[in-house]
């Protein structure tokens, strides 16, 4: 049995469960004080980080198919949606526990803190994707529009990385890692765009002249 046949037999609902379980699990561990001395920061970072990782996985599915022929396309919607759930959980921890529902802090954060603004922007760009991640929306919208909406994910990932850079005190190894993965994904994507293809055929034509 090839890997792809194996993957095809794996139900999406199974993956859905596996990926979402850590959300309530981490929250539970936080309430019983099992997340170290600073459970709030732990939970906030964990949800944010897992959200970012899952976004990157979602974006990797096309290049993985292209370069390794491993087909994960059937899981893409599931992974993307779960990423969105992590990001919502991340924001909930911030709003309910970190700032304790304080409107004053929220407003001043949104006015002054660039990493909060970048993070919120990333979240907002993801909302239309989440809303249209169902068969009904795919049927209702024409494919081109649907595709356009879903290319917002590239804006979301770039703002998420900015959110991460802007809140960091120093350049850490993990920051470099996530940046590198994002840059690779973006380069591969840019090479597929029609503009890039046109430009590269022009330049080739120039050279052959």
């Amino acid at each position: 049995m090839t890997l792809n046949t194996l993957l095809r037999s794996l139900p999406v609902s199974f993956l859905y469960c596996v990926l979402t379980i850590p959300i309530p699990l981490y929250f539970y561990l936080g309430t019983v004080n099992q997340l170290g001395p600073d459970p709030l920061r732990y939970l906030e970072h964990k949800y944010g980080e897992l959200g970012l990782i899952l976004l990157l996985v979602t974006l990797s599915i096309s290049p993985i198919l292209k370069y390794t022929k491993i087909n994960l396309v059937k899981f893409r919607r599931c992974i993307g949606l779960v990423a969105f759930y992590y990001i919502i959980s991340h924001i909930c921890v911030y709003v309910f526990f970190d700032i304790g529902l304080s409107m004053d802090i929220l407003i001043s954060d949104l006015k002054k803190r660039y990493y909060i603004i970048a993070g919120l922007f990333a979240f907002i760009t993801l909302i239309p994707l989440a809303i249209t991640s169902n068969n009904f929306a795919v049927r209702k919208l024409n494919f081109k529009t649907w595709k356009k909406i879903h290319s917002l994910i590239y804006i979301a990932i770039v703002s998420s990385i900015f959110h991460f850079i802007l809140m960091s005190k120093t350049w850490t190894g993990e920051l470099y890692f996530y940046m590198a993965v994002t840059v690779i994904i973006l380069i591969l994507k840019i090479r597929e765009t029609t503009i890039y293809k046109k430009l590269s055929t022009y330049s080739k034509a120039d050279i052959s002249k």
Partner: protein
Amino acid sequence: MKILKHSDVTPRNIYLGRREFVKALGIASAASLVSYPVSAEQDYSKKGKLNTFEEITNYNNFYEFGTSKTDPAEYAHNLTTNPWEITFDGITQNKRKFDISEILKGKPIQERVYRLRCVEGWSMVIPWIGFPLHELINQLELDYDTKYVAFDTIFRPEEMRGQRRATLDWPYREGLTIEEAIHPLTFIATGLYGRELPKQNGAPLRLVVPWKYGFKSIKSITKISFMKKQPFTTWNAENPREYGFYSNVNPNVDHPRWSQATERVIGEGLFGERRKTELFNGYITEVGDLYKGLDLKKYF
């Protein structure tokens, strides 16, 4: 200055019993560093609940061992703290290098309970043991025009894995004005909870300046220099807009990227309420005079 008895503020059940405390000191003395009886217990923590030994030793910013809060607890054991020498610069006496035992000799060990406020917006209450820095400075012969004191953390990348990467401009350096350095609250910690200082907390000796953000309280000190000019300080050099030379705790001066008005109290759990940050971390009656007439927004 207000000197409270520790027992006035600390619920006994969350702290070591008196007898255990003395016993812990005895054990530590066998390990040679903390070999003097406790002469005083002084609580300046403004009625905070003490953090547990586990919290204090598993939630550390000590980038020499990695940037995560748990890296120091995991990797600090690699640091050799015995033998340990401290070099003094800017003193007029001939002998400039001292073994730690010579520095500790004749200084009664006291306990100080201080609130530590991190620039990241969280705080802990820690029962340090050690001696006031002025007791050490008094033993040295300084130039009459000394204005600043600079401190260096040891640079030993083979033992401190975080130093193998240029996360910061190593070695870590910090500094104080001479007035701040000889202030009675400025403390050299050699231990906590009556035990020898754990390596992740800056063994064998570290600075504790309770009215400043935690990063000023430099760990594992190997060099102390007396200077006429304001010294290089690591975080200030890294990002001068965000970290000032003074870095006094001040709820009215925000860090450019986050508010300093409130702080998360470590140990209060997921549902804990934020605490209002106090000017000079609550030590205003003790240190307010040091900054009379100084524009704290400009000299942050």
